[in-house]
């Protein structure tokens, strides 16, 4: 389990994160939502060890992150960045293979097949030979998803859960690939792994999240099941829109329609 406790990140005189606590638990799909600039990416960076908090602690299975060597951490968690540009002409297959860099013990056979299987999973099975730089933004994002799937392997290995962190994985995807991507995340969590995803779409969040964290101005504004969190009051106080939250007849799932603005 990844656990941030009372984490504060200060840039200049401003607290980008203000005493935030959050958990990423195995077997669960945790979603962070919130307006632009709320501190979602920053919280994800703190949880992955990319940013060191100014105060507060971040632990992985009880061990402070700072005490873990990068390669040990990389064997248990993978991170999908918000955007990524490559300076050199790599093929799609070569980018996906970068995910294997931290898995020295892998058998040669798996080393060959794992990248291909990962590309299949993200619906890019025939893209291996294409140059990464010539793909569309959405396709590039899926290449990186394949890369981190390659890095992390199975959701649970030797009874130890693995984790994936996704920063806006659906940002430039069409609706079908948004759903497919979140299905991959869902299956990873169902398989016993831990998932943290930042999503903008509240409806997708409601559909997929086991646990929803809504952030606002560097703080956690609300958290819990989507059902409990997504309310008319939250829409107004956090997102600044007066919008009636709908309820699906079956299952009572909340949904929001921009048309419902009042």
């Amino acid at each position, binding site marked *: 389990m990844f656990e941030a406790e009372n984490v504060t990140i200060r840039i200049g005189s401003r607290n980008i994160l203000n005493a935030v606590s959050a958990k990423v638990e195995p077997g669960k799909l945790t979603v962070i939502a919130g307006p632009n600039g709320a501190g979602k990416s920053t919280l994800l960076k703190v949880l992955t060890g990319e940013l060191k908090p100014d105060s507060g602690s971040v632990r992985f299975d009880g061990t402070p992150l700072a005490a873990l060597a990068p390669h040990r951490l990389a064997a248990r968690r993978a991170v999908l960045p918000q955007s990524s540009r490559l300076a050199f002409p790599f*093929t799609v297959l*070569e980018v996906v293979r970068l995910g294997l860099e931290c898995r020295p013990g892998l058998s040669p056979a798996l080393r060959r097949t794992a990248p291909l299987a990962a590309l299949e999973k993200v619906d890019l099975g025939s893209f291996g030979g294409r140059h990464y730089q010539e793909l569309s933004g959405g396709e590039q994002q899926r290449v990186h998803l394949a890369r981190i799937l390659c890095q992390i392997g199975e959701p649970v290995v030797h009874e130890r859960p693995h984790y994936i962190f996704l920063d806006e994985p659906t940002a430039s995807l069409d609706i079908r690939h948004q759903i497919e991507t979140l299905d991959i995340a869902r299956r990873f969590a169902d398989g016993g792994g831990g998932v943290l995803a930042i999503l903008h779409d509240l409806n997708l969040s409601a559909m997929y999240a086991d646990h929803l964290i809504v952030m606002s101005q560097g703080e956690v504004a609300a958290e819990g099941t989507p059902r409990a969190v997504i309310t008319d009051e939250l829409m107004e106080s956090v997102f600044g829109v007066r919008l009636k939250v709908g309820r699906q007849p079956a299952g009572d799932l909340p949904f929001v329609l921009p048309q419902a603005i009042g």
Partner: protein
Amino acid sequence: MSAADSTVSMGAIAGDRSRTAAVMLIVLTIALVLTAVISLGVGPSGMPLGRVLAVLLAGPNADHLPAADVLIVWQIRMPRVLLGALIGASLAVAGAVLQGLFRNPLADPGLVGVSSGAALGAVTVIVLGPGVLAPVFLLVGFAALPIAAFTGGLIATIILYVIATRHGRTSVATMLLAGIALGAFAGAGTGLLIYVASDQQLREVTFWTLGALSGASWMKLAVCGPVMALVLLAAPVLGRGLNAIVLGEAEAYHLGINVQRMKKLAIFLVAAATGAAVAVSGVIGFVGIVVPHLLRLGMGADHRPLLPACALLGGILLLVADMLARTIVAPAELPIGIITAALGAPFFLWLLLRNRSFVDL
């Protein structure tokens, strides 16, 4: 460009270029050996290939062959060819490592002031060695020059990196501009030293700033050769890290790379390679940018095969440039830096024309 054009499918798996890379490494190895043997025969007193081979096989102490031939091949040309190959290899590898570190194909030790820093170090020792720095000179002996060149290159690389990189992202514009400033500053220092130099020192300094292999000897090879050889052997260790850092520093960390340690090693190796090369041959430009770029076109950007391939092609390129330097105005000879600049600069311009997006400042 259509999808089919841009598809790379040389190996059994689409997009897998490791087989192409392996073939290129073999071809380049053979080509380097051939170029080296041919270089041994080229010079004011030309020598047919057969005779070169005979002298080579007979060893440096053969007494059944003309003494002049043995002397020319073993004492004059051999150290020069070995040094030339090592220098070319070091410069190309330093270029590839610097480009990987900065995630930019335009970084080159010559272009961004690292070589100028090394040259300033070398010139400082030449000019001040007999005077102000005499005690230091006595202490470290003939290693003073390479050490000074290394220190100059190291300082320049560190300054460059600190200035051009913020939050794990490198700004190309800042890197190139900082490189110009560093080069100018080092040039000013060198100019100042030239101003106080004696005539004899002046000749030596000119040699340094133009780049030349004519001073090659077994002695220089013994001092700088091991440094360059060590760098070339150590560089492949960086392959994994440089591959990962192509995605960005944060991504490399997520992939399990100890980024800080890897960056330090990379900067140290670039400074050592450039320093050693500059110490024996002065500033030889463009090898570090042309060689990695050509190879990436042919075999892709995977640094594991790329770094050894750079060493091989860098060696070949410098030997060819040296042969030109020795023959164009024979029996005199041109500084090799003039040749590499005359060939490299147009190539560099072509590179910019072909792909302007490299420098989206």
